[in-house]
């Protein structure tokens, strides 16, 4: 029953900053993530955590190595051609929430449904998931009218609305106070247990790491054990 959702083989990601100056963000990362796992990635700043998440999520491509997402190799494909995978199989949650400021909570979530091509049900599905994260009274509010914790709930709703195979959260509690952070993590954990979706969470917060089933340590672009 332990189906592999993400697999990487010898991933490398280099950024060329000049002729002589090359940043090696990832240097040979090989790992497997199974269905239903709740994984934390921790490591110092600049160790390549975000880069790795972006590659999992079909937002960025590796310089070398292979990535499979839900059985499909995505490392050979152009990023612009992977929008369907980003829309349907991956849910992103960012540290800065990344909501669209001119849209209401409901519209922000609806957008993700529309992009995945299910326009007809967008409103109902968006309202349902917002209710599930406890925002049924905030549907018509713009991000600027919501607290940090509420904004992150909207972002979680948006990430989950298309029932993705994997949810990738990059420091989701980085801008929240301790109390709110715990609430958010508990919410993610609940969703994981209820729906059996796979979660990968980048975090600095040891409390967050504590509730995870597995911790991946990253340092200088390598997995450390």
């Amino acid at each position, binding site marked *: 029953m332990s189906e592999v959702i993400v697999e990487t083989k010898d991933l490398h990601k280099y950024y060329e900053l000049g002729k002589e100056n090359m940043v090696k963000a990832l240097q040979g990362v090989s790992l497997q993530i199974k269905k239903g796992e709740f994984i934390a990635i921790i490591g110092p700043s600049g160790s390549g955590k975000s880069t790795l998440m972006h590659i999992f999520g079909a*937002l960025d491509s590796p310089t070398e190595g292979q990535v499979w997402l839900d059985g499909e190799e995505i490392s050979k494909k152009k990023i612009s051609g992977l929008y*369907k995978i980003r829309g349907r199989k991956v849910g992103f949650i960012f540290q800065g929430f*990344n909501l*669209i400021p001119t849209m209401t909570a409901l519209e922000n979530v609806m957008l993700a449904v529309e992009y995945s091509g299910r326009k007809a049900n967008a409103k109902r599905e968006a309202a349902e998931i917002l209710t599930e994260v406890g925002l049924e009274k905030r549907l018509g509010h713009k991000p600027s009218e919501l607290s940090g914790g509420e904004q992150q709930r909207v972002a979680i709703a948006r990430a989950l609305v298309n029932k993705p195979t994997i949810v990738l959260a990059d420091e989701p509690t980085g801008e929240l106070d301790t109390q709110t952070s715990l609430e958010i993590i508990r919410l993610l954990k609940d969703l994981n247990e209820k729906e059996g979706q796979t979660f990968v969470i980048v975090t600095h917060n040891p409390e967050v790491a504590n509730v995870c089933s597995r911790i991946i340590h990253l340092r200088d672009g390598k997995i450390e054990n």
Partner: protein
Amino acid sequence: MKTLRSIFRRKVRSTLTIFGIAIGIFALVVMGSMAEKLNKLVGGGLEYYGTRITVQDAKSGMSFFGGTPIAVSKIDEIKKIPGVKSAYASVEILKDEISSGVNFGMPPMIAGYDPASFKDDPAGSIKVASGRDIQAGDIKKAVLGSDMVKKLNVVVGDQIDLRGTKFEVVGIYDKTFSAPDSYIMVNLPDAQELMLESLPTAFRPSVKKENLATSISVLVKGGYNASEVTKQINDKVKDVKALDPEEFKKQVANSVAIFNLIILASALIALVVGSFSIINTMIMSVAERIREIGIKKAIGASNFRVLREFVLEAAVMGLIGGLIGLAFGWLTVEIVNYFTAASGQIIFLTTSRLAIGSVIFATVLGAVSGLYPAWYAARLNPIEALRSE
């Protein structure tokens, strides 16, 4: 809705851009209405003049109106030419000896025909809206073209003054949107008398009133070529000059085409300026929203989708500008027409093809202007876009 909100996120900038387009479309609608009115006028004129050969005295100038009188007796000679269906004398003189003020379109004309022969002419089939048409034997009776009613401020039964002679208005023609709208029809002998009085005094004793005409209109039988018949008349009848209706059509078509081109070009210049303004606004709008583009891509928007959103935004700006421009242009045209109608001069005609065409044009222009900024937005790398700010 979402598109409108995106546009008006920057209220002042977008409003200014939209007004840029609106001004261009305003110019297009107003100038275009002028062109449409002229086209219609000329189109009607072609029907009126373009179907018959006009024969003038050989000494007459290039002008269609006035000039040296032609002898009515030439009709018998002309009728002998093969292909001539009928020929009849017509007198067309300006209502006022010196035309007053600036005239757009046709100046008011006094036209005299023999009602019997005029029946054959397609132009003789204009319907009477009220009263009756000129009949054989009428003396000092006039039937007015529709524009003349307002201009002279008269109704059927009133008296009008034509070059010092009183005439009774017995009827009013339907609107034709062309030359006959500014005609005052009288019986041929009356017109001949008015014409005689308009001739230089020294000239008068040498001509017989019944033999006076400004031109002879010749209708061509079916199956004959008008240009060919014109040539025959010029070759066989002495001291006359027959004008080929085909030549006339060509000349008119050329001058109308030039006029239309000038109008189109000036409106286009206005719109190119508007288009640059949209490009500028959209580039700024994309630059401000790079992060938003990154978010959209991260949650599943395709490049095409991003492109479409921005192109749509630009198109909607064009559409709004187009509608505003049309509204103001149309309003202006109606107001000017309302005031000039009192003097019987309608200068503008906003046709539905012009109205719809200019709004579509504004929308397409907006979309095209938005294409480059939208393409730039669509090609942004999602990670770099998310990292911005």
